[in-house]
């Protein structure tokens, strides 16, 4: 079976109609991974036994003529920050090198209940901290479009696996752009849902008020199917919202004519590469041709988003990562002198440089004497950034702009300059601070044939609108 651009519906139909068994489909993905992944590095771990057990279940259902679930037999990959019962989960960190979770992440469990076949765990920046996937403690991921370039981060493996047809669709996590930015760099769709839309139960926490789980896909419809499957209230996550989940697959077919689309000048300022700007402007024209009304809006505090984000995110991270102490799970240093020596040396040996940097920055921002000036100040600016969106959304249904200022950069290019790496997240961190949904869709290529992504922001809990726009754009393109 040709795996190139295989969608959820195509894969499911092939299985349902007996053109291929779910087992054979999973096997062909494993074969593809074995042949292509050594040069890309998207997978950290394959879960063959679990995949083939699920596939056999689906095959038995097909044989009996039972009604198949929406993802029956569809091979998926899971970012390694989502815990999987019995399947090693590392979060891209040495500190969890041998961690075998005793439970499943809700989003993964929901995918499997819908028939999905989990192929394995995908590479990412350590604890989802990074914008290039170079912070993985295991290996970097190479961008399938150009192996000398990064796939983006932190969900680099999830984006690369979809782009290279090593999974039909995947799950990632997005704390400051970690789904949208790699989707943009790899030329696929990446959706960060509204905060609270998808349960975070089983997501290894980075920054709890900013973390989201969301899908990577080849089409807007696939993203809609994935979101419909994983969204909704979960008693295991008290922050998962009790807001009804619409049928996004139906929603995306509705017309976009007459929709008001905001364009914020703050997203087209200094630092935006001309080629990227031109591609986004052309895409906006395409939306106008589809009957959308293009409206100027302002998000005046955008330039303060990066500093506010990196204070809030690291403060929360320093607290969340305190749990890694070598007592209950994870790495423990050998021949320690005392309990406190054990904590320190286990953490020193287990964490990589970027994770230590963020723990240090966050601890500093929360420490006595600096709390008001840094952490509290950042929280106040977060309010201003959120209010920017609330005001803008009084005038428009969605806001569009570039996902990233440039296409994928070279491996090693920014690795020694953490600030330069952080600044590349300028257009994505705002959605996490405000809690709104955002989607990145491919809208063109640079002269060097690197993908360019356009980002569409929606109102809180209005993923339906941004998916609808993504679908309409895709159909017209």
């Amino acid at each position, binding site marked *: 079976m040709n795996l190139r651009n295989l969608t959820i519906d195509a894969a499911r139909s092939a299985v349902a109609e007996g053109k291929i068994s779910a087992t054979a489909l999973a096997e062909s993905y494993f074969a593809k991974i074995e042949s292509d992944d050594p040069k890309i590095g998207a997978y950290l771990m394959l879960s063959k036994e679990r995949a083939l057990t699920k596939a056999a279940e689906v095959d038995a259902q097909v044989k009996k003529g039972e009604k198949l679930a929406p993802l029956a037999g569809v091979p998926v990959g899971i970012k390694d920050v989502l815990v999987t019962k019995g399947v090693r989960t590392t979060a891209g960190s040495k500190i969890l090198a041998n961690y075998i979770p005793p439970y499943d992440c809700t989003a993964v469990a929901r995918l499997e209940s819908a028939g999905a076949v989990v192929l394995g765990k995908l590479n990412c920046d350590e604890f989802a901290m990074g914008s290039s996937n170079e912070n993985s403690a295991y290996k970097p991921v190479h961008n399938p479009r150009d192996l000398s370039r990064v796939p983006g981060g932190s969900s680099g493996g999830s984006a690369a696996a979809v782009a290279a047809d090593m999974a039909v669709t995947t799950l990632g996590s997005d704390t400051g752009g970690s789904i949208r930015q790699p989707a943009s760099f790899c030329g696929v769709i990446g959706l960060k849902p509204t905060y609270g839309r998808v349960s975070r139960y089983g997501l290894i926490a980075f920054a709890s008020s900013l973390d989201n789980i969301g899908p990577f896909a080849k089409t807007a419809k696939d993203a809609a199917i994935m979101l419909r499957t994983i969204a909704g209230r979960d008693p295991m996550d008290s922050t998962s919202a009790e807001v009804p989940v619409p049928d996004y697959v139906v929603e995306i077919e509705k017309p976009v004519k007459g929709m008001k689309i905001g364009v914020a000048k703050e997203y087209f300022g200094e630092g935006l590469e001309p080629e990227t700007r031109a591609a986004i402007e052309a895409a906006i024209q395409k939306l106008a041709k589809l009957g959308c009304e293009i409206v100027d809006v302002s998000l005046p505090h955008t330039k303060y988003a*990066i500093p506010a984000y990196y204070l809030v995110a690291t403060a929360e991270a320093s607290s969340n990562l305190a749990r890694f102490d070598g007592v209950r799970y994870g790495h423990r240093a050998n021949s320690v002198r005392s309990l406190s020596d054990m904590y320190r040396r286990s*953490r020193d040996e287990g964490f990589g440089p970027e994770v230590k940097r963020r723990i240090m920055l966050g601890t500093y921002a929360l420490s006595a004497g600096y709390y008001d000036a840094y952490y509290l100040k950042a929280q106040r600016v977060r309010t201003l950034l959120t209010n920017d969106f609330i005001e803008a959304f009084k005038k428009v249904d969605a806001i569009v702009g570039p996902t990233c200022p440039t296409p994928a950069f070279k491996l090693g290019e920014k690795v020694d300059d953490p600030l330069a790496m952080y600044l590349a997240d300028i257009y994505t961190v705002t959605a996490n601070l405000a809690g709104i949904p955002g989607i990145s869709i491919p809208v063109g290529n640079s002269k060097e044939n690197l993908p360019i992504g356009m980002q569409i922001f929606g109102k809180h*809990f209005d993923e339906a609108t941004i998916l609808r726009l993504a679908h309409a754009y895709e159909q017209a393109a």
Partner: protein
Amino acid sequence: MKVTEKDVSYVADLANLELTEQERTRMVRDLNSILGHVDSLSELDTKNVAPMAQVSDRFGLDDSKQGSERFAYASRDDVHEGLRKSLPHDVALANAPDSDGTFFKVPKVIEK
């Protein structure tokens, strides 16, 4: 320079990190570079702006309800029976670097 070697030692201590000499030098450089950028926040007058720790209390809730009632969906009845079972002992200890089958084992806590 906002952050000195001494600050780095103090913060590393709070964060339960040891850090090598080389890491400390690098950390002084990186934290100063990042905090230099962060200083732009002081341009904003935020005296009358409320801090925002999370988004859940502002969005996606039933606006007709007040206070904790708005989060009533997130709690369950106070019952003794029918709760989800805790992890069995052996499962909870399975990832422990050291245990005696009942407890997690750690080095001596109280030093003479």
